């Protein structure tokens, strides 16, 4: 009887991955593997890497500047300038949003990011992975600017347009990827994720 589990588990029935799904996946991978797609993603979703190199000094400067600006203009005004960056502190879960709207329950999905705990770049890696995953989901048509709800019933070719994406940090420390320019985070009261 004990061996029954082994036999049954080793011979489980197999489902077939449909050719439509295969084509959709491969089309998305083409976008991921094309240098032009990577360049577009980089320019539209990430601030320059040089920002990260100067992070300690920049944080101090930002702290002082934030105090001055918040005092003069108020926190909301400072946030709207998009000067706050924050690290992704919860690297387990990330979110893709169809719209920059935190009040809806039907405009995003949740997914995991695989970050090695011994990776020194893991904090930035979580945001980068999330951006790449969301980008691929836009590419395969699961998100669309034509509708705010998720998921979209994708059909036809899998080369759907990928809008500029931005990584923001939610109040719980998780990263959320929104369509829009970098200032999108500040417009909904969030910090940009440090990449």
């Amino acid at each position, binding site marked *: 009887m004990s061996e029954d589990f082994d036999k049954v588990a080793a011979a489980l029935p197999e489902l*077939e991955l449909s050719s439509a799904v295969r084509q959709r996946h491969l089309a998305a991978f083409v976008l991921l593997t094309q240098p032009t797609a990577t360049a577009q993603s980089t320019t539209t979703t990430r601030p320059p890497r040089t920002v990260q190199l100067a992070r300690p000094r920049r944080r101090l400067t930002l702290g002082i500047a934030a105090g001055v600006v918040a005092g003069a203009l108020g926190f909301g005004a400072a946030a709207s300038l998009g000067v706050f960056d924050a690290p992704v502190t919860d690297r387990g879960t990330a979110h893709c949003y169809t719209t920059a709207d935190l009040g809806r329950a039907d405009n995003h999905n949740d997914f995991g990011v695989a970050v090695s705990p011994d990776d020194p770049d893991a904090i930035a890696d979580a945001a980068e992975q999330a951006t790449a995953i969301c980008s691929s989901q836009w590419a395969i048509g699961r998100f669309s600017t034509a509708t705010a709800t998720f998921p979209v019933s994708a059909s036809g070719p899998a080369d759907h347009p990928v809008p500029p994406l931005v990584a923001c940090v939610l109040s719980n420390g998780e990263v959320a990827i929104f369509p829009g320019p970098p200032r999108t985070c500040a417009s909904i009261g969030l910090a940009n994720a440090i990449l």
Partner: protein
Amino acid sequence: MDAVEGPDRLWALVQSGDADAFARVYDLHAGRIFNHCYRRILSRQDAEDLTAEVFALAWRKRTEIRLVDQVGGLPWLLVTANHLMHRHRLSAVRSRALRSRIPAQEPGPDHAGMIVERIDDDHTLALIASVLGTLSRRDRDVVQLCVIEGLTPTQVATASGEPASSVRSRLSRALAKARREYRVRLDAAATLPTGRVSE
């Protein structure tokens, strides 16, 4: 294809940035990754999405993937799929699917044989998934990788970076518990008046 271009060569090309080789790796392993995910979460769409995410990550991390003799990056793909499934917080979906499938099925007497076969398949998958669900995450991973996917403890250890001895001892412990849980479920099903029992 394997005879001409084995997994080792194919993965070496992928690691050098060959997108065509990556597409061939996808064709080689996508079905297996999809089934690996489906068997745990019992949702076709989620399994399809997870498969895409596993391969997207594989491309991004291609230079860091630990290759294993004869099977290339397959163990890495499976271990990463496990990691993503855990992270995806699909336990609610999984529990819902299990609750709806584990109770004894009663196919109508006029159902076609193919449908009955499909229900049997679903029942078997749900039964094994429910057994795996009683294990801790790490125990579940090692049973799924070694018993269901047929990897050796050494291959799992190489892909996950753990000592092979740890994988072996965990497999032994986890498998003993899985067998016990499986037997309990079969016994329980046998006592149900209208229950279906695996042949």
